[in-house]
């Protein structure tokens, strides 16, 4: 019986070459190394090798010295998120044991772990750190290198334990944001509610409104929204009730209509510091997340002194009934328009717009398990997606060994993938089907006429 080993994070390290200029002091460069169990010698050697690779590549490409390195057993990605600070992520390539000439050999499947996946995982690990800690250089300036090391350790030793890189795919690469389809008036109501909250509590500088696992409004900047949404999804939204899902009482019982969620690491305090751009400045804010049923209101609060229980109480009293009312309205709206929801489309499709980071895909939804696709298919999509990063425009039609069809399209900043699992269809039929989908889904945007 052949055994199979999935891709896994082998190592992750952060280093700063300028911290050691003399031979014999190389250990000073190491800011963080995962796994911590590795011997110092090994850490220094690996970092030295990465440094050498980067420096070597700089000769040929000064701007983007070295992005990834493939070996037989690993893939390695490099990132310089802040000047002079480097991060490296090493991932093992999945392998399986086969019998070759009556000998047991390990076969490595390089295609099963894409460069783009490793790079995205690395970038994301930095983004998450920055969201909760601010920039590394910023910490170094205020708390010295030792302070930075401590912060990196607190954050990353926990972070990497929870990362399952083998489950990463096209969606982790795109990091898109699904938007809740609402009509103009319903959307305006949500927006006016957010305005009301922000003008009533002037300490609240920014607000993000999510329903189910879809975004409705974000007052953050786009990149911050993307990162924050990822965090929110992982920590809360993937368990959040869907507005359409049955079995949720339409009106929660009791006077406490809503509640604060997302406790910070220490627990209890129910608010977390996050660093987001406010008025073009990376600013630490306290994050309060209040939820009523599927609706989640994330508030970024800035105060000189810490907002006490009184603030929480006042805001809770204010939000509870109002958000309750709005939630009921959204729920009614969503159930009225259930049939038009893209999540209900029976296509295995992915649509992504780089410009607003909007993603639409029934494959994302937890409620469409019948649309599951095989890991191979997912790999193929991830691969196609990486190819399309380099293209401005194009169309690809693929017939796979398993007799599936994949159609990929890109026009400007929008890309679209669709997978057909029906057997015995020909090229013309596939083409016609894609035309129909485009007409139905994209008739009101400039996308592939």
């Amino acid at each position: 019986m052949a055994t199979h080993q999935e891709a896994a994070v082998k190592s992750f390290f952060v280093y700063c070459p300028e911290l050691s200029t003399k031979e014999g002091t190389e250990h000073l460069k190491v800011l963080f190394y995962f796994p911590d169990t590795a011997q110092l010698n090994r850490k220094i050697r690996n970092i030295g090798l990465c440094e050498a690779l980067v420096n070597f590549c700089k000769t040929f490409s000064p701007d983007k010295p070295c992005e990834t390195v493939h070996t037989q057993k690993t893939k390695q990605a490099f990132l310089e998120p802040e000047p002079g600070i480097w991060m490296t992520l090493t991932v093992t390539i999945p392998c399986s044991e086969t019998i070759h000439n009556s000998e047991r050999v390990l076969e490595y499947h390089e295609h099963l772990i894409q460069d783009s996946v490793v790079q995205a995982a690395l970038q994301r690990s930095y983004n998450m750190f920055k969201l909760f800690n601010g920039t590394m250089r910023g910490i170094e300036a205020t708390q010295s290198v030792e302070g930075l090391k401590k912060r990196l350790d607190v954050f990353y030793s926990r972070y990497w334990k929870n990362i399952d890189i083998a489950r990463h795919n096209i969606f982790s690469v795109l990091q898109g944001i699904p938007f809740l389809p609402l009509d103009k008036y319903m959307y305006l109501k949500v927006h006016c509610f957010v305005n009301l909250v922000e003008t009533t509590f002037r300490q609240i500088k920014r607000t993000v409104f999510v329903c189910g696992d879809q975004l409705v409004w974000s007052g953050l900047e786009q990149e911050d929204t993307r990162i924050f949404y990822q965090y929110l999804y992982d920590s809360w939204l993937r368990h959040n009730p869907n507005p359409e899902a049955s079995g949720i009482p339409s009106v929660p019982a009791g006077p406490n209509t809503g509640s604060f969620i997302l406790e910070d690491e220490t627990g209890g305090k129910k608010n977390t510091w996050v660093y987001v751009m406010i008025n073009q400045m990376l600013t630490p804010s306290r994050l309060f997340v209040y939820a009523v049923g599927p609706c989640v209101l994330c508030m970024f609060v800035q105060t000189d002194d810490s907002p006490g229980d009184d603030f929480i109480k006042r805001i809770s009293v204010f939000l509870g009934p109002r958000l309750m009312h709005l939630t009921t309205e959204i729920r009614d709206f969503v159930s009225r328009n259930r049939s038009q929801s893209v999540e209900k489309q029976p296509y295995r499709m992915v649509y992504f717009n780089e410009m607003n980071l909007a993603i639409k895909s029934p494959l994302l939804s937890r409620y469409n398990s019948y649309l599951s696709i095989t890991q191979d298919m997912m790999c193929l999509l991830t691969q196609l997606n990486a190819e399309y990063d380099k293209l401005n425009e194009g169309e690809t039609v693929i017939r796979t060994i398993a007799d599936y069809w994949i159609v990929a399209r890109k026009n400007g900043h929008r890309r679209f993938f669709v997978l057909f699992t029906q057997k015995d269809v020909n090229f013309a039929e596939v083409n016609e089907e894609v035309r129909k989908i485009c007409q139905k889904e994209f008739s009101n945007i400039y996308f592939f006429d």
Partner: protein
Amino acid sequence: MASIGSHYLELEQVPLVFDPLEKTKGSFFDQGNFQMFCVQEGFSKVKVKSVKEEDNFNLTIPQRGQVRSIKFSGGQPKILSIQTRSNSVEFVNVFSSDREQTLPLKQHQYDVVGFHWVFRNDYVILITTSTVELYSCNSSSLSFKLLKSFNINVSWAIFSPTEYILIVCSKGGNFLHPFYFRSGSSVPITRLPKIEIELGPSRDLKASLKERDVFVMTLYGHVYIAVIRTSPQGPGFGSEVLLFHLPHDGAAKLSHILNMDIPGRCTLSVVDNLVVVHHQASKTSMIYDISFGGSISGSTLKHNAVLAPLPLSPTVVHLRQRSGSKTPSPKIITDDSLIAHDSSITSITPELYSSKWIFFQPNVVIDAQYGVIWLLKLNLTSISNMMTDKCNVIQLLLMRSGGKDVIVEVFRECLEPGRQANLSILGAMFDQLNHAFKILSGYHDIGPGKPYQNSISQREFYTNVLVPFSDRKDMPYQYMVAVTIEYIRSLNKFGIQVEHFLFELVMVILIENKCFYQLHQFLQYHVICDSKPLATLLLSKELVYSPATQLAMDMFKRLGTADSEIIDILLSRGQILSALRFVKASDKVDTVSARLFLEAAANEDDHMLFYTVYKFFEERNMRLRKRAEFPADEQCKEYEELFINWFGGKKT
């Protein structure tokens, strides 16, 4: 001008002065023609005073004793009617001949209670102690014909010359008998079912309804009979006003009750559909708006006063005695510059709520002591400043004829930095504003509407409220956007199409403050409606926000009328194949300019691209004209040469 905070009702001087009571043998005000009759010594000379100076004249009437009532008919010729005896009325056509006729009464034993002209000079209604009689009048021959007579034991009667309603109170009971006059029918009088007024359990059984406590008034287009009565809880509990809605063809129904906390004598006026209660003892007045939802008690609504009772605004009258004139009556001076210097001008400050005051419907106040007449007016600015609930202010102002400017002022105060109103209140105010706008624009499909007098259009709101604040440095842009979006939300609520300048305002503020992502979300949800100017504005922001191009292109696409713009954008960005594909998809292949495409392709310095584009149009030429060559008017000569230059081929 009333000082704000102490008055909300003012007296507006009517340019009509009459001889004070002490100088005459009786003064009679005719509400229908707005004329004052002052009977002189000897009962044969009567001064007639009107608002228009040319309508002031002296009359000589037959001397038959004390004048009990005198008035002109409406219409032409004007017929003078005088009652000097208890049981007859005389009619004189004073402007032509001297013919005079005494209206014959069938039953001379009945005394005349009152008489009124109905429909100009067409009919006369005569009320005697036992009958109500309608006569038609032939104005040229001054002959009268009895059309209809009702037998009622009349105690007193009131008549509304504007609504043509007669209310008769019968003797011995507290019954009101309404009569309604309808022009066009041969007997234009309808007797409506009588109304019984319960005067309350604590009242003396012998007490009866008094003429001074009953009024006919029109509120929001409906006729009401108002009755002042002591609260049923007893005399200590103050009075209340019962409003009976009087339909044209049915029984009157008690529909509103106005609560008054003060006991004692009151009288009523109506100003701009508000009921004003004047209380003589405390020298204050209160206003009531029956369109405000009151507390429901059965089928009636109970209302409290809109504001606390306050006195009328004090007023000064400036009079100049004209000695040399033929009619030596004083003239009212309103020119302030004259008042200070002219010694012939005397200024008087009439006592407010004086016992010499007489109130006429709807809003006439007469001071018999000084011989002046006022009209009661609202000071809307004071009212809006005194009311604390801004939603009620907007509702009240929307239903007042002069409320428009004050509404703008209220909104401006709500937006004033430092005193900014809560968005939920503003939202409710916008909803009222737009509800009124919707109704006054003729949409009737949104249920029963309130009787709005005015509304504010989007253009007016934008120009007078939003724009003055959008440039102010102390106005936080977030609040400005929030207010505008709240306004747009409200417009959407009532299905009113939002005008483009509101979107532009939002876009400009968001772009100025670099809130591109927020703008992007608005566009994504189509909150900001598509238009060519907005798409062009977006396109111009491409350098500061790269997704702007995509947004603009989508907008052009949705507009459906901007294909040439899309092609231009694609060509200018060197996306020539995309442009061709777009042309094909939108069925414009036969009409687009080949030169534009060839020029763009030639500029790209890509031979294969140029070849492709050239061949595409050659194909079109073949299809349209069966020849590969370009016609002369397409001006493609230089590109034909370029093609031959690059790829060779046959010369033409």
